[in-house]
């Protein structure tokens, strides 16, 4: 084994798509959309900037997912392990915020926007966490 190969013996160094960058971009759009909606409460006159940001966020999530499916060798087992538990945690967190919005009888259109933004948030963060872990793990055995 060469020195260079040994250097990364415990940590695989693979060329990976920019999943983390896309995920952070999606997170920024989601949070910016949330700020725009929350800043107008109880009005909902100009929701379109938040809608645009939500669409961009969802688009980045889709691209992120697509690029991940194209990775030939990846540590999917640790990815799933982290993703599942993180998703559980973020469902609880997003659920608490959703509970507050519903309890306060938030207007329907605002509630729909906030719910969609929370869903995007709850999908993005576990994916970021799981990918961050899996990129440094050994790829799953083929076959």
């Amino acid at each position: 084994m060469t020195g260079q190969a040994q250097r990364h013996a415990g940590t695989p160094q693979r060329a990976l798509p920019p999943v983390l960058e896309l995920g952070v971009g999606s997170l920024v759009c989601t949070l910016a959309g949330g700020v725009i909606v929350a800043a107008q409460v109880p009005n909902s006159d100009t929701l379109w900037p938040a809608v645009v940001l939500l669409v961009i966020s969802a688009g980045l999530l889709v691209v992120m997912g697509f690029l991940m499916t194209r990775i030939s060798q990846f540590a999917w087992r640790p990815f799933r392990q982290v993703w599942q538990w993180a998703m559980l945690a973020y469902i609880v967190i997003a659920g608490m915020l959703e509970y507050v919005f519903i309890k306060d009888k938030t207007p329907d259109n605002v509630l729909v926007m906030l719910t969609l933004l929370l869903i995007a948030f709850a999908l993005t963060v576990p994916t970021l966490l799981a990918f961050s872990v899996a990129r440094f793990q050994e790829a799953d055995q083929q076959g």
Partner: protein
Amino acid sequence: MTEIATGAPFEAQAPGAATPPRPGSLVPNTIVPLQGLPIVGVVLIGLVVAIASNKLWAVDFFHVVGGALWTGVDLFVGFIVGPILGRLSIPARAEFSARFMPKMMLLMPTLVTVTLAAGWQLGLLKGFVNAGYPNHEWAVASYVVVAVMAVVALGVLEPANIAVLFEMRKPEPDGEVIARLMSRFVWAAGITGTMQVATLIIMTKLASV
């Protein structure tokens, strides 16, 4: 540093220590300390009851206590622990992190959830979140600060923390990877600490109106 670059075990790195502990052996069996989950459960149930009751004192209690702890921890970690951590040797950083980060992974999301949920309810009761409120711009400023902190914490800090914990669980943790991920922790903690100073200014301004 050569030892780190070649991926040698950590024990070779500790300066002045005869038989330094191996970070991998310090990592608990679970990434998140499971014994803390019942406490989190009790806190969240209390939060739901407080919001459901819609009593000013109850939501004020959760927001102030959660927010004070969140701000205090962020300032302490950002300006006290972070710089110290940045000057420690890699094995010392790893040993500290193995004990510190699992607890933070349970503590911080709980504090953030409690503070935000109770804060929104408190804002409704007091009128801060209403767009027609005279000092509404201060409330909006707090949303922006929270959003920036969320990007740094969830996009950089937390992924790095979890990746470090998983790296430490390997039979031979890669010191280079841990050092790289932990350097993110140091600067990200500094940014969130700075944002918390802004939070203190905004919240005291809102409370003084």
